[in-house]
């Protein structure tokens, strides 16, 4: 039942997911999409940890994944609050209006 899966393949999948998330962050202008792409990246990181845990056959990877999950939750909560603030001020979700730190 439990046959062996090559380690690299798991890592490669995590890598692909991470890069896709990165593309999403770099490309999209809607700030909610950017947040979603960030979630994708975090998730890919978690996948990498679980793959590693499966390789070494202990639970530390899962605990790390738990921490990442907690972090993602906290980040999403605060991030969405900030998005709401931004929407109230600028009445748009375009990220290019937030450029006052330029120069």
């Amino acid at each position: 039942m439990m046959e062996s899966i090559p380690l690299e393949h798991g890592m490669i999948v995590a890598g692909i997911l991470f890069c896709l998330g990165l593309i999403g962050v770099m490309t999209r202008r809607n700030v909610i999409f950017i947040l979603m792409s960030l979630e994708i990246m975090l998730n890919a990181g978690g996948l990498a940890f679980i793959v590693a845990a499966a390789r070494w056959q202990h639970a530390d990877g899962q605990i790390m994944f738990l921490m990442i999950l907690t972090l993602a939750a906290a980040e999403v909560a605060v991030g969405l609050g900030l998005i709401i603030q931004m929407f109230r001020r600028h009445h748009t979700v375009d990220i290019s209006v937030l450029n006052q730190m330029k120069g």
Partner: protein
Amino acid sequence: MLDLVGLLPLFPLLGFLILVLSFGRLPKLAVAIVGAGSVGLSFLLAAGISITLLTSNMESFSRLIWTWMSVGDFTSGFSFYLDGLAVVMILVITGVGFLIHLYSTGFMIDDPGYAKFFAYMNLFVAAMLVLVLADNLVLLYLGWEGVGLCSYLLIGFWYENPANGYAARKAFVVTRVGDTSMAVGLFLLFTQLGTLNIQDMLLGAEQQWVTGQGVAVVAALLLLGGAVGKSAQLPLQTWLPDAMAGPTPISALIHAATMVTAGVYLIARTHVLFELAPLAQNLVAWVGLITLLMAGFTALTQFDIKRILAYSTISQIGYMFLGLGVGAWSASIFHLMTHAFFKALLFLAAGTVILSLHHEHNIFKMGGMWRQLPVAFASFIIGSAALAALPFTAGYFSKDEILLAALAVEGGTLLWLGGVLGAFLTALYSFRLVFIAFLGKPSHATREVTGFTMAFPLAVLAFLSLAGGLIHVPVEQVFGLSEEHHAGFLVHAFMIAVPILGVAAAWLFFLARPQWAESMKASTVGGALHRFWFSGWGMDALYQIVFVRPFVFLANLNRHDFFDTLYAGIAALTRGGHKMVAQAQTGQLRWYAVSIAIGLVLMISLGVAL
């Protein structure tokens, strides 16, 4: 009494300090008492010291006031040295100086810078005294620079007029050229002889160097350069006519009686050195001769009363240089003394004229004032007679001695002839001044402005201009006994006749038949000569082309200051780099994400590669 020699420059220096530190708040009477009184006190002290020294058996007296610097083997102190030469100089400086200070208390009474004037004058007298009393060349150089500074301050006394500031700067810069030459000479003497104490140095030079040795010639030439600058001889004479922009009393004191004679004093002091360098000494004579002729011709064409007197000063100092050049040391010092008397007299009288005519300087606008300005007229007659070396004036005795000494020297006939021509010119231009300004038809109706403070110095100086020829300068011990020069009766008669001829020619051309002078001036050759001589033989224009223009050109090239640009360039580079990098801060989040990704890629590739 001799121990008090240190007080001599101290009195005027204290006067200077009091006047400066009172910030001009003292009443005018107090300023006059402090200003003139300090120099008067110095004169009394100088008289006492001189009598003490001359009646004693001492040849010289020297006193160390304090040690100025002591570095390694080299010690230099504030030490004063008194001998016959120094005695003559201090008496002239304090005596004539006091008379001029007294005159100025009346002359400058309406000027708002009254206290400033006396402060600067006192500082000048102090510096000049230090110069002539100095025992070593370093202290002499201190006095040298001090009088240069005071000359600058006083020429530009009325500084609100930029032309005065320009004249002061010109004087300072031109004399600076001479000062640099002198400083280099000092360095050379120190490295060669190991000491800067004048007497030790002269002794060492006599022992170590043979006559005509190269080092001696170079050192003497360098010192000559300094003397030429300060005494306004060729080629550094261009500053003195412009220095007439200052008040008349300082023209009298600084640019007639004392500072310009500092060069003569320097050469006389270091005469041993010049005797060891015949080439340099010969050059001194020729410089003197050429300068006296050039200045004589120029004075003939001037119309500003003070400029005529300035050129005559240049000419007379040329005589002194001529005397030094032929080895007539005591004759030159004698002429220095008599010149101080009659030139100060002439300048002070000119001041009276100028003041009475409300600052009119042009002699062609004056005329026929002999009745209205009697004191000035009498002073001018006496002074001009002494200047022209008419018989029985002080100038006659001194000038004759110099010319006789020139004749006695080998190959000196040319010098003598030039000197005699110069005497003719001197009589011509000085009496031209008298005739045009004082005789003829009256042009102004005016009253003379002369109080006691102005008339008394004029009277004293007039007396000295006549009787000063009988004073015997006690400088034998300094220069060694000079030979009495005897010349034939014809020579003496010739030398007496020439100035009288000059007076007659002046009477003819400028009083009796002025149209002859006018027609000469109007002719092509005459007109060209007149313009050429008027511009001081074109020397100002020459210097403008040769020195001023290239220097200004170079300064303009460096207008943006190369080194400053270097440092400013570094700052500009940094700012430019900042601007470039700041363009990466667009404020756009996606751009930042892209740059993070790029950085990540680069980092990993670096990690993989290394």
